[in-house]
């Protein structure tokens, strides 16, 4: 039996790496991928909890998270496509027309 706290630690580490990726990477698509990593960390903790508590809710929740992630990816990537067309770059530092 895998100890739940270790699953939780793994999920916290993955979540932190995701958060870090959002703040560090300058390619906007990689930033987006880091967010996917955060969601996966959440999924992991859901599964861990579901297993510990002998409950299915956590597992069901994951499916919905995956669907939402997919929907966000579709919309997000199309927005990225669109912004690439006007700005010809993916560098997040350059998207600063709106400020102050």
């Amino acid at each position, binding site marked *: 039996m895998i100890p739940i706290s270790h699953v*939780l630690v793994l999920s916290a580490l993955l*979540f932190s790496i*995701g*958060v870090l990726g*959002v703040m560090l990477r300058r390619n*906007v698509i990689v*930033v*987006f991928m880091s*967010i996917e990593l*955060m*969601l996966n*960390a*959440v999924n992991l*903790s*859901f599964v*861990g*909890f579901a297993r*510990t*508590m002998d*409950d299915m*809710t*956590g597992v*069901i*929740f994951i499916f*919905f*998270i995956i669907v*939402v992630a997919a*929907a*966000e990816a579709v*919309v*997000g990537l199309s*927005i*990225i496509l*669109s*912004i690439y067309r*006007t*700005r010809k770059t993916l560098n997040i530092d350059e*998207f*600063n*027309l*709106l*400020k*102050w």
Partner: protein
Amino acid sequence: MAFVTTTDLIPLIPELILLGAAFVVLLLDLFAPGSQRTTLAVTTIVGFVIALVAEIQLLDSGATGFYGTIVADGFSILFESLYLVIGILTVLLSLHYLDDHGIGFGEYYVLLITAVVGMMFMTSSLELLVIFIGLEIMSISSYILVGIRRRVPESNEAALKYLLLGAFSTGFLLYGISLLYGATGSIRIPEIVVALQEPGALNNPLAIIGVALIIIAMGFKVAVVPFHMWTPDVYSGAPTPVTAFLSAAAKAAGFAMFVRVLLTGIPLEAELWKDLFWAIAVLTMTVGNVMALMQNSVKRMLAYSSVAHAGYIMVAVVVGTPAALSSVIFYSCAYAVMGTGAFGILTVRHFGKTPDSYDDLAGYARYKPCLAFLMSVFMLSLIGLPLTGGFIGKLQIFQAALEEGWVWLTVIGLLNSALSVYYYLRVVVCLYMREGSVPDGAVLEVAESPGFALTGLVGAASVVVYLGVFPQTLLELAASSVSTLF
């Protein structure tokens, strides 16, 4: 075994009506491309109105469905009606704006409807899963609406920022939900409440972190400091009617969720969370007002001021008594109407361009006296002068705070609202005291302003004044809807 019965669907009637309307609009746009844009707008409005009627019919029905995860109590009906009203206003303000800016998508209205549907699920559900999905429907619809002017770099950028930060905060929300689930074994608010009432349950780090993460994510949605950073950029980059919609309806939905999930659902250990909310409220009011003071763009100023208004509502959240919660409702309604109105004025072209900076407001008094007057009404209400809804709203909040002895919080709130005079007044000064000259080559519009928009704006201003002179109706509704929460 029928897994969905008719009674389950009763509390969802307004949502179903709206979805029907969305499909009608989608099909009209698809199969009758020649049909006037007005037709689409009118269809949307009709959908909203019918849904509103359905909401009113549901009042006092106490209908529930789907294992008790959907309720049509006074609270949700009041908020849902607010979203519908704001939806109608937004459509009225959109028609000419879409024409002016060449946004020729019938899908615009569909997304508006789905955003409202998402908000309604957020408000009426007692299950974190459905609340989360409702939130995502609203958010994703808003991302697209913000970025719908896809050839405009600002619009793109606003959509991108909104989406990435929104998804980022969604990560926090989900993590919070998962930890709360781990601590309580459920994602249904009534069951979570029961589980957390066990002795010692609130000292469980899982529960504490879970709730804190949920607060963080919801703080992002209602744009409280320090999770507000997206607001000015997104609000100023978005098409103005969408900005109005977001600042009014999306924010109200955020607060509805905040109240439903955090204030009546999860028993928070009083002192700890109160101190936290206190700090957030003070920061939000102050930062919002101070930054609004710095702006040269009126739209951006209004964006920051919407942060400040979220701060005032947070004051009521800190207090947390039923009276305070009903003032949250009242203020959300009042702010939604006056905020929509204020942004709405900015949708109408002046001297051939959509006004943005303070200087663009020059000459309104002469060329568009009616709009100048309406804008003044909205500004005065945002300041919180008597005989407007804004005054009663602030009064309710601060009175509730005083009754519980939050004197300092009230003083800070009053100081902040005094500070806000500086920049709201600047708008009125520009409207009335600056002589605008018609720029070379600019076309003076023949009609003062488009009929649909004018209807909406006059309606909003009337509501603002009505709420100031006869607030009792809404106050009673708010109080009774709060009583359904407990």
